[in-house]
């Protein structure tokens, strides 16, 4: 070895600033060049559509028809650990969650906005994968992302990434769908198994202490809803039982409509793996989150058509009737147990806690 141990210096040396293209730094949220580059290269390139291309501070939106109608708006914050889990990720969750909320009006989803809080230190690759997933999900749904914003929080002041999405749908005036319209005699249908999303996320966190082969059920439900409304045009309630699960959602409907909802324990669909995980932890699948399930409440004369239509749709293959609406005991959800007894199904009180033994 005869080479010099000194570094070879070629020309003048200037301390060039690092390009910071690997991780999010505070500069990405400062509004200057770094922000612009991030927006252009990472967000716009993936989410581009004619409205975004106008490059204004606002996104313009036209109403698709002259029929009398109104707008439905919903907004949702999304934070989940881990960011990627079997069956989905925070990006697909952020799009589906809000699309589903506006779709529950029975209207046509028109557009969505997306805002991000990024934690300093988040890998750009991770952010790109999330935005890719949002773009792909929005494409499947068939609606544009027309506005957005990005802020960067100092390390420790956020958890990697928080996403807010707001959705807008157009609803014809003839359509009256909402929790308050559940009517005694109506039939309650559920589009498939309960608790898949919640258990999939817990399993992905490695917190179960055992392997659970279960996928999140994340899915946009507006297509399924369109099918249901064609078959059962007088549907009274559409609701997606997300956080708090089917049990909590049914309680909301019972209170809104001042009716009681009666469900049959033996009819409630649960995936065997989810059931097993719940047994181990002392959870009730009635209170575990779903992200791609639909509760339909419709008049009895349309229930059969609604059920058939749901079962023909990809996201409703396991749809079942789970109960009915009654006038007595308004505001309550009651369950006929497998043994023929009756018990209350309450709203989930707070955080679900695993039991001791």
């Amino acid at each position, binding site marked *: 070895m005869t080479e010099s141990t000194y570094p070879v210096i070629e020309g003048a040396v200037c301390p060039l600033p690092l390009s910071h293209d690997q991780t999010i730094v505070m500069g990405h949220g400062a509004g200057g060049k770094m922000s612009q580059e991030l927006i252009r290269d990472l967000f716009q390139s993936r989410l581009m559509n004619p409205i975004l291309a106008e490059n204004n501070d606002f996104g313009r939106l036209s109403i698709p028809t002259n029929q009398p109608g109104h707008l439905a708006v919903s907004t949702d914050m999304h934070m989940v650990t881990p960011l990627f889990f079997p069956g989905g990720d925070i990006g697909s969750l952020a799009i589906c969650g809000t699309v589903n909320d506006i779709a529950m009006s029975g209207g046509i989803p028109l557009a969505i906005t997306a805002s991000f809080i990024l934690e300093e230190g988040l890998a750009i690759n991770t952010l790109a994968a999330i935005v890719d997933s949002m773009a792909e999900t929005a494409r499947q749904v068939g609606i544009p992302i027309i506005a957005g914003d990005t802020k960067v929080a100092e390390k420790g002041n956020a958890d990697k990434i928080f996403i807010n999405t707001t959705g807008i749908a157009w609803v014809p005036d003839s359509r009256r769908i909402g929790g308050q319209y559940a009517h005694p005699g109506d039939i309650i249908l559920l589009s498939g198994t309960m608790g898949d999303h919640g258990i999939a996320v817990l399993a992905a966190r490695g917190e179960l*202490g055992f392997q659970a082969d279960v996928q999140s059920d994340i899915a946009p439900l507006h297509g399924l809803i369109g099918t249901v409304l064609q078959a059962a045009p007088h549907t009274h309630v559409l609701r997606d039982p997300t956080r708090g699960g089917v049990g909590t959602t049914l309680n909301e409907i019972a209170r809104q409509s001042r009716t009681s909802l009666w469900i049959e324990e*033996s009819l409630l669909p649960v995936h065997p793996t989810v059931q097993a995980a719940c047994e181990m932890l002392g959870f009730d699948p009635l209170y575990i989150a779903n992200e791609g399930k639909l509760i339909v409440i419709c008049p009895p004369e349309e229930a059969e058509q609604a059920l058939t239509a749901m079962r023909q749709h990809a996201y409703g293959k396991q749809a079942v009737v789970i109960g009915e609406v009654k006038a007595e005991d308004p505001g309550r959800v009651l369950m006929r147990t497998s*043994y023929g*007894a009756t018990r*209350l199904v309450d709203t989930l009180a707070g955080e679900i806690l695993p039991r001791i033994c």
Partner: protein
Amino acid sequence: MELLKEFRNPIHARTLLDELHRITTRPWVIMEICGGQTHAIMQSGIDQLLPPQIELVHGPGCPVCVTPLELIDKALAIASMPDVIFTSFGDMLRVPGSHGDLFSIRAAGGDVRTVYTPLDAVKIARDNPDKEVVFFAIGFETTAPVNLMSLKQAINLGLTNYSLLVSQSLVPPAMHAILSSPQNRVQAFLSAGHVNTIMGMWEYPPIAQQYHIPIVVTGFEPVDLLNGILQTVRQLEAGRYAVENAYSRVVTLEGNQPAQRMIEEMYEVHDRQWRGIGMIPQSGWRLRPAYAQYDAEKRFSLSHIVTQESDICIAGQILQGLKKPHQCPAFGKECTPRNPLGATMVSSEGACAAYYNFARIREGQ
């Protein structure tokens, strides 16, 4: 899951119920000891299907409920300390202490973590050598082996930053306390199958003989429970008082002997406070002096604790089977699962929570 299906089979349940209706001729008061059984009964609703003469009263077998307030306050004090990671089963986080609960400590910046098993707490201790890691080792005989196993593992790994805050209660002394109370109404026990899995059944015949009451070791599924109730009522109707096993697919006479040996080696029996009930002699376990350095009560300075119990809560009377949850004036009003005054409203094994969650409709509230 396939195995469990058999023990949830509504047809089997119906057969047992029919037999119970056929043989029951007089009123009987039966206590299910374990809160897990209380919840299974309320959740399936089998109490509504029993002959009207059979009254089930709910026992003290809810580890969260009977953990003394002073120990909860100690947990809150330790969890508030800097450089401590406080680990616990999830159930304990919402149990009210004199001032707040572990959730409020966490919200105030304390490092409180839920674990599914104490062995996870040992991993946390291993990964955080500059922190003190404390596990809230609560439970009846059932959880003692796994709690101690975590300590053994920590010792084997050479960890010096792991300790247990021990609140370990014993069932037989509680049975003595209930049966010797002048107000006692209990005529038979469904014994907690999980406890017997560890301890076997050998401790129970002297109790059955002394108080002339049947004790039937019972499982947790609806068919298990109905089997246990049926065996109990058969004894009551015949005037017998034996210890019987209605959970023989799991429980043996001698129990889990290696677990019992480990308990004997590491724990010693002591007099213990039960929340809402008071002191029961020789009713708890604590770490033997040889393990004092792993005893969180001795490891941390906790002299400033002043406890203050809610003066409305009647959890003590409920845990002794003297009153039912809906007979408490605060039930469903000042006291709910969201704002519990007593631990019986918190735990998934607490009788008040079971009534609140599943049965308010029947009490006309």
